């Protein structure tokens, strides 16, 4: 369990993010075409996982656009934006915002990803969704960097995430 804040009020996650140096847990998430996607689908690339509670909220939208810009110039990196939004909402957002360089993945089928990555919120108005977190994985799925956003309404640390991708 980890402590974060939502608009200044304490909130709690179900567990801890995977540790730096550990192998990232595999996952099954749902892509825009409703197909199942696992971590193994991106083997051989560096991955940036941007975990957000909803693309229809301001900070999540801003970070997704920022990571989309970063991904544009990095053929060796895949940016995975993971949220509890249904794939239909993710596709609507990306279409409206011209976001084409990230892969959006949905927890529509279950919250196993949120539990396995320790980011499921167990209380607060966002209970059932996820805390804000960023992970960088290497080509072999080893965790190089992770940040759990201490205040859910604040953007992630882009500089440190980018440094970890170098």
């Amino acid at each position, binding site marked *: 369990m980890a402590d974060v804040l939502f608009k200044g009020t304490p909130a709690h996650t179900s567990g801890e993010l995977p540790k730096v140096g550990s192998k990232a847990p595999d996952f099954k998430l*749902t892509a825009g075409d*409703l197909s199942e996607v696992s971590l193994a689908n991106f083997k051989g690339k560096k991955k940036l996982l941007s975990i957000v509670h*909803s693309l*229809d*909220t301001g900070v999540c939208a801003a970070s997704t656009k920022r990571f989309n810009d970063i991904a544009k110039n990095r053929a060796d990196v895949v940016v995975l934006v993971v949220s*509890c*939004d*249904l794939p*239909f*909402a993710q*596709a*609507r957002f990306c279409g409206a915002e011209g976001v084409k360089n990230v892969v959006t993945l949905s927890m*529509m*089928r*279950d919250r196993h990803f949120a539990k396995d990555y320790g980011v499921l919120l167990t209380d607060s*108005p*966002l*209970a*059932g*969704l996820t805390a804000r977190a960023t992970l960088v994985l290497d080509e072999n799925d080893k965790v190089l960097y992770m940040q759990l956003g201490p205040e859910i309404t604040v953007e992630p640390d882009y500089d440190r995430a980018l440094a970890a991708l170098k």
Partner: protein
Amino acid sequence: MTNITHRGNPVHTIGELPAVGSRAPDFRLTDANLHDVSLADFRGKKKLLNIFPSIDTPTCALSTRKFNEYAAKHPNAVIIMVSADLPFAQQHFCSVENTHNVKTLSMMRDRNFAKDYGVLLLDGLYQGITARAIVVIDENDKVVYTELVPEIRQEPNYDKALAALK
């Protein structure tokens, strides 16, 4: 378990809709302000639940507009859209489409509603979200009408549902 189809392919729900004449199961769902709402909050009123897979897909959007038109002319009618969309997506739809006469409630926290009302899909492209269904509940929470739409892409029977609400 009930057999229906999605785009002509067989899919299965976890259970059966509550039987006409039975007491509607209580529920905990989440409104646009991220507040939890239960069936008891609408006691003393007739309610129509329009249950669907996602407000960001065409048939669900169409049914929301149609029920909103009715609700605009019948200010005492309680017509509630229930889906696995996050409240942010439901709100986005209602503000873009100006459908403020119906209520929207989300299964963001869990799928208990979907299980208790027997509409959770166990397989197919929409596994993890719900079939399309209508449940009309009277002032004392007794079920007076139900429809499980046999093909998910089809619209519900509006005339019958609204007649039951009168």
